[in-house]
């Protein structure tokens, strides 16, 4: 997604990423997505508010991805061209999505919300973070040895 030089492009690169992360994390806190109970309430049909979080955020990114490329041709801090997030489809999207779905339904927590959960004081979420790193490690070791060119 970004080249080897991206971090050297501008002294404002990392500060801007930090500001973006703060807004992102504030939103996860404010929307209560950092609380697994609230996500489980959605999945168990007792509070459908999560839909407004995900689709509300997607509307904002949709506007940004649609409008910003019309204003400029490349990003000011990296010189990178503006693109959209279009990943190729294969069965991994279904298999991985299903595994993620079981984990999300079991725990009520996803990666971004888990980081945000630390910020609201939820030290217990470290169990989930340890699990996520272990899971990412296991699939990485397995896929590094099975698909060396992927």
């Amino acid at each position, binding site marked *: 997604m*970004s080249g080897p030089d*991206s*971090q050297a492009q501008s002294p404002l690169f990392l500060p*801007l*990423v*930090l500001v*973006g*992360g*703060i*807004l*992102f*994390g*504030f939103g*996860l*806190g*404010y*929307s*209560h*997505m950092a609380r697994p109970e609230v996500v*489980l309430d959605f*999945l168990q*049909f007792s*509070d459908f*508010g999560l839909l*407004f*979080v995900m689709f*509300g955020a*997607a509307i*904002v990114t949709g506007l940004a991805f649609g409008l*910003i490329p019309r204003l400029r041709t490349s*990003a000011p*801090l990296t010189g990178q061209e503006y693109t959209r*997030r*279009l990943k190729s489809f294969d069965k*991994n*999207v279904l298999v*991985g*999505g299903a*595994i*993620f*779905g*079981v*984990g*999300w*339904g079991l*725990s*009520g927590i*996803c*990666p*971004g919300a*888990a980081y945000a959960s630390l910020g*609201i004081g939820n*030290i*217990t979420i470290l*169990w989930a973070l340890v*699990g996520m790193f272990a*899971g*990412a490690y296991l699939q*990485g070791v397995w*896929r590094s040895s099975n698909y060396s060119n992927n």
Partner: protein
Amino acid sequence: MVTELIDPSVYEALFPEGITRYAVGGLFVGLGAAVIYFGTGIIAGASTFLESTLSYVSDQSRFQRYRYDRDWRIVFTVGIIIGAAIYGVFWQGELWTTDVQPARLLLGGLLVGIGTRIGKGCTSGHGVCGVGSASKTSIVGVMTFLIVAIGTAQLVMALGVKP
């Protein structure tokens, strides 16, 4: 607006906490991704951080492909923690911890770590940025994990697992 369109008791059943916190929070999540996109052209999801950070400690090719991304991804994650902490200090006013039991968090987290990386994205990568890109792959990814997660959570509830 929504409250005028549907019966108040139905609204109360669907959204017992109202929708303001969810909609406002969602706007901030999208705004954070949009700010990074405007400045850098990068479309940031949250789950790649797991693999990019592992590149510091593992030479596996799967992690090393993210080595040029790993520094800014740590900054992004630190930002997420700080942003949530700002909410925690000024709105929540106290430390909050989950009652969901550690075994569920650990096992669920393990599957989230495996699944998001194999499935090319998580709730932010596919759900927010991919859907915002009108990506068919992401829309299928979101439908998949949403349906499976609902089925799993309903099963957990039916089995009486609490909290």
